[in-house]
């Protein structure tokens, strides 16, 4: 099973039927763009794009795909126009300020995305992939120790990708995987949750002092201030777990939303006491 699913994650896509060639103007020379990305839970390189000013939508960078491919629902939502097997857009902007010239794509529900979305595997909802017809217009630098990709336009006239399919017009019979994953998630009662909540706010600047976590300042009016935390307090434990650094505390609270209470063991002078903070809204 897991092999099937893993096979279903490979973003190798062939050009679907009917996508005819069309001339594209060479991209204008422009500076390098820093495009923020994130890795999904499935280790796909994901960027965000606004199509015709709507979105943002989540796209996988996929040299294994012939073109920009997006779900039919998104194509409809952004008002993409049909043009000989392709869909065209007035504007496609990537996060980071990059606008793709003469953008066009293919509206089709890829089985890979269908399956991943049904199970919520990527941790985010995926709306499409960016493939050859977009990627080939740029020299792209990937560096997973950095938070951004670097895109530099290059002068390359991208020909329309050739279509390869087997007799039935299929991509080798893998399409069932998406449906299978949908079926399994329905059977297992899996409802992916793509909702994101802000972590709760303490309102304290932290520092280290000879192996101890120290409150460097307390922001006036913030939750830490209201709960009575003071500058100079040493936080020895949170939720009963001992701490030594700001990172330890960040790690201990990383899953606490607004309104959660956080019990801190605090040493002030020679006294040790427990302070319970109700985490607030802020960052």
């Amino acid at each position, binding site marked *: 099973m897991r092999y*099937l699913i893993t096979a279903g994650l*490979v973003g*190798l896509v062939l050009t679907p039927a009917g996508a005819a060639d069309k001339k594209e103007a060479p991209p204008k020379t422009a500076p390098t763009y820093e495009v923020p990305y994130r890795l999904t839970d499935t280790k796909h390189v994901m960027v965000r794009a606004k199509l015709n000013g709507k979105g943002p939508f989540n796209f996988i960078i996929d040299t294994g795909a012939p073109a920009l491919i997006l779900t039919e629902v998104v194509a409809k939502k952004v008002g993409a126009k049909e043009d000989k097997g392709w869909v065209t857009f007035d504007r496609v902007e990537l996060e980071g300020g990059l606008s793709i010239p003469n953008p066009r794509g293919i509206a089709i529900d890829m089985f890979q995305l269908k399956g991943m979305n049904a199970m919520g595997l990527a941790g985010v909802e995926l709306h499409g*992939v960016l493939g050859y017809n977009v990627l080939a217009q740029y020299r792209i*630098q990937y560096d997973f120790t950095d938070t951004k990709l670097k895109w530099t336009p290059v002068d390359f006239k991208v020909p329309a990708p050739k279509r390869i399919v087997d007799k039935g017009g299929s991509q080798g019979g893998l399409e069932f995987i998406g449906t299978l994953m949908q079926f399994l998630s329905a059977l297992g009662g899996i409802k992916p949750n793509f909702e994101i909540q802000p972590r709760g706010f303490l309102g304290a600047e932290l520092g280290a002092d000879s192996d101890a976590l120290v409150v460097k300042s307390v922001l006036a*009016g913030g939750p830490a201030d209201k709960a009575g935390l003071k500058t100079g307090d040493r936080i020895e434990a949170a939720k009963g777990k001992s701490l030594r650094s700001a990172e330890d505390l960040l790690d201990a609270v990383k899953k606490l939303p607004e309104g959660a209470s956080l019990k801190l063991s605090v040493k002030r002078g020679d006294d040790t006491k427990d302070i319970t903070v109700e985490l607030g809204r802020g960052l």
Partner: protein
Amino acid sequence: MKRILAALLALPLLAGFARAEDKPVLKADSKPQAVKFDLVPSGHFIVKVKLNGHGPYNLIFDTGAPSTLITPKVAREAKLIDKAKDRPLIPIFGMEGQVKIKEFQVGDVVAEDVSAMILDHPTVKLFSKEYEKKYGSIEGIVGFPFFAKYKMTVDYAAKEMTFVPSGYKGGTDVMADLMQTVMNSMSSSKPQPRIAAPAGLWGLELDKLAADEAEGVNVKAVLPGGPAAEAGLKAGDRVLTIDGRWTDSIPDAYTAASFVKAGQPVAVVVKRSGKEVKLTVAPRPGL
């Protein structure tokens, strides 16, 4: 029923965890190594890959592939089969399990301990049929476990990639991580929302009404003495981007802040009285 299904699916998923870490490939000289590729008419590109000195074989280079794939035929030739782990009971697509390839060489770039799956991917087969005459058969896909180790550039115009080891280790246990992800999604039918955790203290309160569909989020309050106040953010500002990331919703703003480490100055673009203003904020250690 649910539980039975989850258990059935979860059990095999557990196997194959806890394996040795990939070693990052770090060499003293950091000159980028170039690798030429063949761009084929379908818009894909092919690289020459040697597996433990065997080959070279044609593989498709696929940034959209979380795993590296090798055909059973080539795996046998390169003597990888005996070492395969987690061989499935019913080998669909000729699956022979996973291997860690000691020397995975793309062009002149040699990576150590690259994990790969052995299987006959039907799409790879189709490609092979299409391109066999001109390039020879196609024997798999180069995916994330290889390229994650490098600072990599891809240039279609020059038909060339370049690689410099980056020291990134997150490509290590991709397969195990994937299995974990699959298992997590199966084990809970009511997954909790994710929490976006800023990596530093900003001293800022944001809000946005549900009916507000315009770009950006509102600054509700700036806490005196905090990094945001110091940078000149004001209540009433509309935050459009944080470090280049769109902040069109509260979750987006927190997600953007999760990428900004304490002490790292980043651009924050706000709309203030109709004009865009670019400020620089360096969040501090804290929360």
